[in-house]
């Protein structure tokens, strides 16, 4: 089943692989939606489901960007730890992936960190940072109930 209009607008912003993963994720959220609503003790409506999928799409975008930035950062930290050899200190200075270089000083690394920071700032400006970053799907469903009147549902 295709995503609902609001979430589709988010999904269509994404490049192919991210779009495919997000669509799969949203399909699994949709599949389990009634159980999520039951667990959150919020009555199920198609409008609430649409809002849940919209927020879940943004959550998936954040998770993808954040996870990659974390993994790159942590991997450089782990692999870059120095070891002694013949009185010299050696360590991995960065990663070469084909033509791309990821090191603490490379353009690729800086671009990834900027992407993460800008997304974080955007979510903060929109006042959904905590909701997106810290909430489980059940928390998201509960937030729909709390904000339902404001949104006219």
């Amino acid at each position, binding site marked *: 089943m295709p995503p609902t209009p*609001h979430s589709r*607008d*988010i999904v269509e*912003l*994404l*490049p*192919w*692989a*991210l*779009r495919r*993963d997000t669509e799969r994720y949203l399909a*699994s959220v949709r599949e389990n939606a009634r159980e999520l609503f039951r667990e959150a003790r919020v009555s199920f409506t198609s409008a609430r489901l649409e*809002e849940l999928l*919209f927020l879940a799409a*943004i959550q998936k*975008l954040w*998770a*993808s*960007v954040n*996870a*990659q930035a*974390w*993994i*790159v*950062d*942590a*991997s450089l*930290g*782990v*692999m870059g*730890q120095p*070891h002694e*050899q013949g009185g010299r200190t*050696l*360590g*991995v*200075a*960065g*990663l*070469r*992936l*084909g033509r*791309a*270089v990821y*090191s603490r000083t490379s353009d*690729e690394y800086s*671009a*990834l960190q*900027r*992407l993460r920071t*800008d*997304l974080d700032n*955007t979510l903060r*400006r*929109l*006042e*959904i940072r905590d909701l997106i970053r810290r909430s489980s799907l059940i928390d998201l469903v509960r937030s729909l109930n709390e*904000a339902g009147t*404001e*949104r006219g549902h």
Partner: protein
Amino acid sequence: VDIEAIKRELQRFAVRHQAGLDEVSRRQAQFLEIGALAFVVEHYRKNNYAVEAHGLDASHLFHVKLGSQGNPANYSWFTCRRGGAEFDIYLNLPVLGGYDDGGVYVVDVGVVRHASLGRRRQHEPLAVKNDDLITFAEVKNFRIYPMLLAHFIGIVHELQPPCLGRRRPYGFTRDHHFAPALFTVGSITPNSRLILAGFSARRYRVNVVPGFDLAIARLSANAAAPSPLRP
């Protein structure tokens, strides 16, 4: 919350970072594999191994093997040493199956006896002999669901059958090797927890690590944190 305002802002964000999002999209699987390699390296470092990178270029960059093709010896790898124990860790390593059928499997991270790549004879397949494989790790960009667990157990069955209810090789636990590991970015479903408990009861020795991106961040940020990987 104004849905239309959020959509407008995220559209602007996507335009500003089109190249960055393309890069994240293209590199997702590669960085998961690199993260798995870093996790395994850190496991041995936490168990007091001296870990040394080989095959670095002149700028000390680690040359990452990005897929199943190519000779792993032409890329970078790690060697771990502690007392008499010595072994190598490779990314995207071809390994012969455990049943002498000539089939070759490419594991995301392979831990093999030291210099076992060099023991290959001419005309033999470009793969490490199964006897030289000590353990391995796979990484998936999914939450843990039952069929993923079944798929992983199938790989263990072909590559490391002793881990499924039989005795592991002598020295495996002493040398702090970890049972074959499945890393995933997502969470674990309740049904999958039941299945994992069943594996444990049947003495299937495997590691399943959900939320792997957060686990590696915790591992790198806290020097005192023990490795979550079990023998």
